[in-house]
């Protein structure tokens, strides 16, 4: 498995779309659809649209904000994308439960006393008490986060473990407590000893250690006593952060990998598609015989697996009057957009890499043979086709996250989309791109 951090942001600036709202594009009853995960009132865990989703929950329905009623749904739970949020700028803390303290268990031949959800000095934390009767060593007395809190590491980067730690008393002599992630690789050992424990009594301190894994694989947090304790001691732990890089950065609170927040930064919301079976679809979208369409989508792909971000109809390769946005779109691993007229198709491609969010857009005027695909405000490379052969946009179901709900599954985050049954003007496209860029956390 591959976990990709997304510290990167798009470098191409957008101009501010002051006072612009996509609702203006539909104010005269234009056909189309508008999906906006950031509007939490439109994302639901049930098909009826009565139970608003919270971050971390599967999404059965996302409503169309355009007023056209083209809501997208998925009834099967395993195929539902996950509603997510992260701070603008992306996720750094890979530990899925940084503040939740309900997942430690006590293990070893003489397990410690573990109190999940404890309170110490006014802070929620886990409290782990070791006594002199407990056997030192990993197999003797340790607390352990369950598999649900495991983190996948790779060997191509250092990882920094940081945690806020407090003690009930200073350690003395040779007493040592280790707080670290381990599993496939022993990772980031925070060692508490007599030398550094004094400042941990009466307050929490953030301790951090960086290390490059020797072996790729899952690791989980497992504090234990390295030596026998001379008297009872309780270690209090919270605000655990595990991140790529050699130094600890500002703390991000994670309730799951799909619910991450950071003090002082605004939240960005998305639907996470797993690239394996997640997909949503609408009923048949009526375009009213439109001969042009403008489509914008904000997404961040998480892998090199071919993936449909959105597609009108079951297959743009064969169905006239349809279109798609894909990331990536083909074997060259570039992202792209594609539209088909009455007889032929046109394709635009864009170099991009997993983990780099962006706004994809295009306007396709079928009789006019105009096709203008863009990525983050710049033109894509036109690679296939010079004409659409006329035609009009045909009424089809719209699919999110997969081709016809059954193949080319998109791996990544979907931050929103706007589809309008006419050719938007250059300024309208720019405004809509800037609006979506803000939604995706791309620097506007």
């Amino acid at each position, binding site marked *: 498995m591959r*976990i990709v951090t997304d510290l990167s942001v798009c470098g191409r600036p957008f101009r501010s779309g002051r006072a612009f709202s996509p609702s203006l594009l539909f104010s005269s009853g234009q056909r189309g659809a508008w999906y906006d995960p950031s509007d939490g009132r439109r994302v639901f865990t049930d098909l009826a649209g009565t139970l608003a989703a919270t971050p971390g929950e599967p999404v059965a329905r996302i409503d169309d904000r355009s007023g056209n009623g083209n809501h997208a749904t998925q009834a099967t*739970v395993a*195929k539902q994308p996950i509603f997510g949020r992260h701070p603008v700028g992306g996720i750094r803390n890979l530990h*899925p439960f940084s503040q939740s303290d309900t997942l430690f268990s006590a293990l070893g031949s003489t397990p410690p006393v573990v109190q999940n959800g404890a309170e110490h000095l006014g802070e929620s934390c886990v409290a782990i008490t070791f006594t002199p009767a407990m056997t030192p060593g990993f197999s003797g007395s340790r607390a352990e986060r369950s*598999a649900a809190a*495991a983190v996948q590491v790779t060997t191509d980067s250092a990882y920094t473990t940081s945690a806020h730690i407090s003690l009930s008393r200073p350690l003395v002599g040779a007493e040592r407590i280790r707080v670290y992630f381990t599993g496939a690789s022993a990772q980031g050992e925070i060692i508490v000893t007599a030398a550094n424990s004094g400042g941990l009594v009466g307050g929490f301190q953030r301790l951090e250690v960086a290390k490059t894994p020797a072996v790729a694989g899952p690791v989980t947090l497992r504090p234990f006593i390295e030596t026998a304790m001379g008297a009872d001691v309780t270690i209090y732990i919270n605000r655990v952060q595990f991140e790529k890089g050699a130094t600890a950065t500002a703390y991000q609170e994670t309730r799951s990998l799909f619910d991450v927040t950071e003090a002082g930064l605004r939240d960005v919301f998305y639907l996470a598609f797993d690239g394996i079976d*997640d997909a949503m679809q609408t009923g048949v979208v009526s375009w009213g015989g439109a001969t042009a369409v403008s489509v914008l989508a904000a997404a961040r792909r998480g892998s090199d697996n071919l993936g449909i971000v959105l597609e009108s109809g079951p297959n743009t390769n064969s169905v006239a009057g349809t279109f798609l946005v894909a990331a990536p779109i083909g*074997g060259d691993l570039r992202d792209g957009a594609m539209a088909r007229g009455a007889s032929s198709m046109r394709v635009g491609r864009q170099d991009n890499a997993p983990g780099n969010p962006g706004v994809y857009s295009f306007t396709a005027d079928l009789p006019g043979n105009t096709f203008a695909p863009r990525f983050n405000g710049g033109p894509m490379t036109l690679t296939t086709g010079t004409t659409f052969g006329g035609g009009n946009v045909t009424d089809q179901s719209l699919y999110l996250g997969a081709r016809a709900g059954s*193949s080319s599954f998109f791996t990544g985050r979907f931050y929103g989309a706007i589809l309008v049954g006419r050719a938007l003007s250059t300024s309208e496209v720019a405004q809509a791109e800037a609006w979506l860029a803000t939604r995706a956390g791309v620097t506007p």
Partner: protein
Amino acid sequence: MRITVSCPEALIGPANQLAMVLGEGPADAATFRVGSWRDAAGHTYAVASFEAGEAWLEHAQMPLRRPDWDEEGTIDMDRARQAQERLLIWSPLDNAAPPAISSSHISVAVTPSGIAAVPFPGLVIDDTDITGDQVRDLP
């Protein structure tokens, strides 16, 4: 954590009954559809993947009981139990070797949370280039 399940085509029917027991309603009978994944021997599989809490794993290994929503007896509990008996559960925290793929068993991989690649080595999806034009012109 993320649960990824590979189901041999012959077991899709029972596996969907089990999916309803462990899921939320009759729509979960569509969890596994016609297999589009293949192993090296040419056996076909359906693959499903989803985020789950540890309760899911516990329920998957406990005696099955008909869920409260199924008042009309939609679920064939015998077939659900048949699927349960074929489960092979694997976690990288317990076993460094990759999970086994078996054409006679339903393989369940328990991996860290997040968007995941399919953790079954040798299992590939039948998929085609989205554009159909097979362009490979990386700069």
